[in-house]
């Protein structure tokens, strides 16, 4: 017997995420594919693999919403909605109490504030710059000849509370090299990089009331990011079960809700 399926596809700048919900709203399939050069192709790949996991067929898909940077290039979607609305919707489903959502993605970072009834109150995206995004970490890791997970592991070993002061990727790279030269422990420097992002995020928060949820690829893969956010924001941020899929999950929920 076939079940109606609702699909959310988040075509992000570096990864395309797909989530499938059944008629009851249960998450029964998901997948992440690299975005590559063609959003349509990566959406197709993510959808096919998610359908396999859900044991569903493409004919069973009754609604599909796309989101993310490449949202307009997803042919399977009947509607596209911004990642701001989708992340808010996804995070709120996991944590109804959240009043702020921080999404740290590859190319942009957003902070979304919600009213108590769940409506969006305010949101902010990072300025046209890599500061405060995953790209900031990736490019410095590259410069240091390590992977992102090495950076994370080193940072977690730090007991310090240093901060890399530069938000700018280029200046931060220079600052890191200067500190290495000055003999500072590399664990501390690595933590400082995560704290730099957390500090940048804190500047984007117009309100510090209520629970804070975090989503996106960086928090999904880096414990040091969570640690830094907790320390800088002086709160225990809530990490949902599938932080990287929050946008796609929100899109799937909106697909299911659409009349």
């Amino acid at each position: 017997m076939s079940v109606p399926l609702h699909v959310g596809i988040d075509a992000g700048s570096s990864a395309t995420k797909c989530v499938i919900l059944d008629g009851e709203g249960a998450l029964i399939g998901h997948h992440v594919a690299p975005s590559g050069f063609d959003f349509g192709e990566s959406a197709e790949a993510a959808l096919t693999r998610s359908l396999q996991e859900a044991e569903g067929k493409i004919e069973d898909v009754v609604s599909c919403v796309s989101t993310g940077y490449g949202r307009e290039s997803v042919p399977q979607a009947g509607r596209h909605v911004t990642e701001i609305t989708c992340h808010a919707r996804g995070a709120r489903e996991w944590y109804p109490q959240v009043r702020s959502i921080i999404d740290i993605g590859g190319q942009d970072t957003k902070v979304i504030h919600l009213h108590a009834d769940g409506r969006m109150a305010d949101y902010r995206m990072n300025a046209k710059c890599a500061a405060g995004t995953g790209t900031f970490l990736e490019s410095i890791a590259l410069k240091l000849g390590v992977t992102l997970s090495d950076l994370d592991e080193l940072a977690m070993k730090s007991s310090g509370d240093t901060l890399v002061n530069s938000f700018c990727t280029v200046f931060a790279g220079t600052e890191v090299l200067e500190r290495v030269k000055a003999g500072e422990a590399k664990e501390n420097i690595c933590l400082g990089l995560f704290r730099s992002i957390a500090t940048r995020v804190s500047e984007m928060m117009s309100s510090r009331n209520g629970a804070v949820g975090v989503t996106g690829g960086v928090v999904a893969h880096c414990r040091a990011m969570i640690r830094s956010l907790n320390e800088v924001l002086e709160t225990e941020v809530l990490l949902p079960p599938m932080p990287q899929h929050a946008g796609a999950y929100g899109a799937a929920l909106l697909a299911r809700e659409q009349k």
Partner: protein
Amino acid sequence: MSAIVKRVEIKAQKRLKALLRDYFVNLDEAAKDPTRRVAWCTSVGPCEILTAMGFEVHFPENHGAQLGARKVSHLHIPRAVGVGYCAESCSYMTSDIGASLSGYSPLQEAYGIEGPAKPDLLAYSTNQCREVQDWWNFFGRRFDAPVDGICPPTHLGEVTSEHIAFVRGLLEAFIQRTEASFGLKLDMDRLKEVVSLSSRASTLWRQVLDTATAAPAPLTFWDGLIQMAPVIVMRGSQTAVDYYDMLLAEMQQRVSDGVGAIPDEQWRLYWEGMPVWPKLRELSDKFFDLRAVIAASTYCNSWAFEEYNGGDPLAWMAKTSIELFINRDENTKQAFLEEMFDKFAVDGAVFHNARTCPNNTNSRFGMAQRLREKRGMPILVFDGDLSDVRFFSTAQSMTNIEAFIEQLQEGRR
């Protein structure tokens, strides 16, 4: 999504194109005629005095906007940066300086004119910013022409009679210096005539903008940006008055016919800050597709002055030049915005944080946040620039705008 529904064209537009051609050709001829004089003037500087003294007036900010609208500012800014002007200072200024250094002007393609008319005098008022002084000084050196202007008190709360008297004195001194340098005599009756025409055009312009209080709004901010040209560059002329008479009649007709600039208007918004000249088309298409009309803006209203009812023309000039929004303190600005939000019954407001114009950006001292809290109204602040596309991200801005409309939709549900 593309604009499937057709836009309603403004009929007066054809006349506007012809007027602008005449204006620039006349300026060019004046610059080449040794018996005539050209002055450069800031957009809300003492241009009525210059016109009354027989100068033809060029407005460099208009030239800066043309460079922006032609999407070439960022190609010329590096020349200005190379000679010591900061890349984050006014991009009207840096693009205008850079274009002059590279020998380019949008007037070449538009009217076959080599460039801005060479000035005999460069006159400014720092009622909008100090950048204009530095900008004018560059060209004063380049053309070996005198630079003169007034520096009125800025960031005013209440505008008092003392302020007005002081600025009136500055204007008188400016007149005396100009008379002495050029061997001219200002005819006060002529000044009164010019001021009357200036005020008449400005009043008509305000009435044109006010037609957008109707729903659907007959014109948008995007139309206003084009239609405002005469109130800036032809201020003090009968031509501008006649043009706005015609435009007003067209807009009033639209209102009585129920014709909106955006068919099926769903959202009414306010625009605060500078336009993004190189992205006008993309932005107006986006708002059009989202059925959002930008019914009012601070920018277009900046040339809607109080009416002149005879009397001392210098006192009128003094008062209007310091009463400007840009010249006021934060509280006065906020009160003005709230009045406009009510008058145009807007659902939300968009604040443009223009990287190179802090003077005409009002999201830097918490105003957007205060207004959100006080009015419970969604307000979007987005990063960009008036001319330099390097400070603008299309993808990010479009997401911001779409999310803003989604936020409005959520609020209406």
